[in-house]
């Protein structure tokens, strides 16, 4: 079985969803939540490069997301003199993220697997603390807002009135952005670009070198693969795209939110996406993002809205808030997948019981 039909089906569904939504009852409108699936798909693809391909457990991917979000905010918000606009800022998050990844990776990538995981976790915590404590620059726990929504030069804003679901205020119209529908397709296009980037890398000497390190580091070194430099490439690429996802996230929310929004929970959510989908499987990560964010931001939310509309559970009780089931959801996802389906829902070629799809691309 090849992955192509699955990917094409998902792409077609994503393209058609906004149109399909027109014909569904208003309470089915989840356009905005689907955008967060796109953002987390990019984050998942980034984490997959480092954890799935190169086999380095990175528990601090949210830190790079935070760096991207704050970089985007400082480069665009009018509290700061830069104000370079959406496109230059969102593109600059890539090199900024890569630089941050390089700075963390350079001294630490020689470490053993579980120690390196702890280092990435520590980095995630330090970044949060630094963003919070440097409040004269980052406004501390306030977060920086408003931030520009995506703009497309030849598109006149406000041509469609499709609103977001889930009670999240869509600021795209207020800030003269591209409008929710166009930004939906723009985010989808970013996912496609990220997918192409990681697919190209996977099927080249770069991806093979990453996978050989994951498979057997010693044999890989003995074949002439320089371990630190190769891991660095994976680490920095992942950091770049995580920062990019962070920039998109901030643009989508029109705010960075407080630094604690980029905590360990987000890193683990990204890890769940990769593990549920299948480590090292690009198609799997996209499925993982759909499943995890779908359950987390759509199914749980709708379920509890429905429960409360039926008068079940007092409002304010911890048991009927979708937020208070997140930890359990992530925890069970990790434990059950590791126990029963360690290769994920859509295993990468060469893993699980699948026959390989071959070396030719």
């Amino acid at each position, binding site marked *: 079985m090849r992955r192509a039909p699955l990917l094409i089906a998902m792409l077609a569904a994503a393209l058609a969803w906004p149109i399909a939504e027109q014909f569904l009852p208003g309470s089915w409108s989840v356009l905005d939540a689907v955008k967060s699936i796109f953002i987390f798909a990019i984050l998942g693809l980034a984490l997959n490069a480092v954890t799935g391909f190169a086999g380095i457990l990175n528990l601090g991917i949210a830190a790079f997301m935070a760096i991207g979000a704050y970089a985007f905010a400082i480069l665009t918000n009018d509290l700061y003199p830069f104000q370079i606009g959406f496109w230059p800022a969102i593109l600059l998050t890539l090199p900024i993220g890569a630089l941050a990844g390089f700075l963390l990776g350079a001294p630490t990538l020689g470490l053993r697997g579980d120690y390196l995981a702890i280092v990435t976790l520590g980095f995630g915590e330090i970044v949060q603390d630094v963003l919070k404590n440097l409040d004269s620059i980052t406004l501390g726990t306030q977060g920086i807002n408003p931030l520009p929504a995506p703009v497309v030069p030849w598109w006149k804003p406000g041509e469609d009135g499709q609103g977001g679901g889930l009670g999240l205020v869509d600021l795209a119209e207020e800030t003269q952005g591209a409008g929710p529908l166009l930004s939906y397709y723009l985010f989808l296009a970013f996912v496609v670009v990220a997918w192409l980037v990681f697919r190209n890398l996977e099927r080249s000497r770069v991806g093979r070198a990453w996978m050989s390190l994951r498979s057997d580091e010693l044999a890989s070194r003995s074949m002439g693969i320089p371990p630190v430099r190769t891991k660095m490439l994976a680490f920095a690429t992942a950091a770049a795209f995580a920062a990019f996802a962070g920039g998109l996230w901030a643009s989508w929310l029109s705010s960075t939110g407080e630094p604690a929004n980029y905590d360990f929970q987000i890193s683990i959510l990204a890890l769940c996406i990769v593990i549920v989908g299948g480590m090292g499987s690009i198609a799997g990560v996209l499925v993982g993002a759909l499943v995890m964010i779908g359950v987390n931001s759509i199914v749980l939310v709708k379920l509890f809205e429905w429960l409360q509309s039926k008068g079940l559970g007092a409002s*304010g009780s*911890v048991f009927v808030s979708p937020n208070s089931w997140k930890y359990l959801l992530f925890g069970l996802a990790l434990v059950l997948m590791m126990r029963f389906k360690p290769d994920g829902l859509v295993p990468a070629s060469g893993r699980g019981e699948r026959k390989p799809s071959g070396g030719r691309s």
Partner: protein
Amino acid sequence: MEFTSAEVFAQQVLNGLSNGMIIALIALGYTMVYGIIELINWAHGDLFMLGGFLALTILGALGLEEASGPMAVVAVLVILAASAGFCGTLNVLADRIAYRPLRRAPKVSLLVTAIGVSFIFVNLGLFWGGVPMEVFSGGIAAAAPKDFPALVPSRNLLGTDDGVGFTLRDLLVVVVTLPLMLGLWWLVARTRLGKAMRATAQNPTAARLMGIDVDRVIGSTFFLGGALAGFASVVYALYNNTIGFQMGYRAGMDAFTAAVLGGIGSLPGAVLGGLLIGLIRAMSDQYLEARWTNALVFAILILILVFRPSGLLGMKQREKV
């Protein structure tokens, strides 16, 4: 009332050592489990948190929140025993259900599973806070920190109210943690179980061939480590008068850093590391800035891992070909 700078320093040393003893007790659990199956037991800090919730529940159920005098001593003993037994059992269950089936899996799978277990524990703690009991403020605002009854007053034992304070609570920390550490050392160094644990840590296959029931030894290790976390949770709660469902993460990271600093796998290392981390935190709060303390602890963790991964008292490991 003014403190001289020497008094401030002495007080911070005392505070640091008290907190350090608690951290050390948690760190021992990390180091024991790591020593025997090379697993960073991520859920350990959250186990500690659940121990605190159980203690508070028992106090509420038995109506001992206001206990004083001899009744307070009884109450403390009861919650110590209950939390230790509970955390030990829960840790063994986690091993049985989640970790044991993965003994042959790659180490990363085990670590990821432990993170998963940790998240499940955190969620249990969150829900526990929503239980409609008076000690949990009737279950409203489940996520908010809970007040823990001040069974042990913070009376200064050095006589005066001024000057350096060594309180009844500091004494409690010493009275609980020191015998536990000595007992653990005796158990590992002198008993049959301890010998079996050391053998399993060195080489599980060889230990199995020599007739050691490796799974039982690993189970015992999980129980002991968990029980220490249970003791630590009660001491922590009595010392600080507050518990919350997210306290496991912070305490766990401090304790893990302590275990790594001392050399993970080494029992004296965990104690030394715990005391050092306690001191560093106290000094940083006083002389640097409290808001940078957590970042400092993590920076220390990263620096140790980069420059001396074997820690202060640990042994170097060689790559096997």
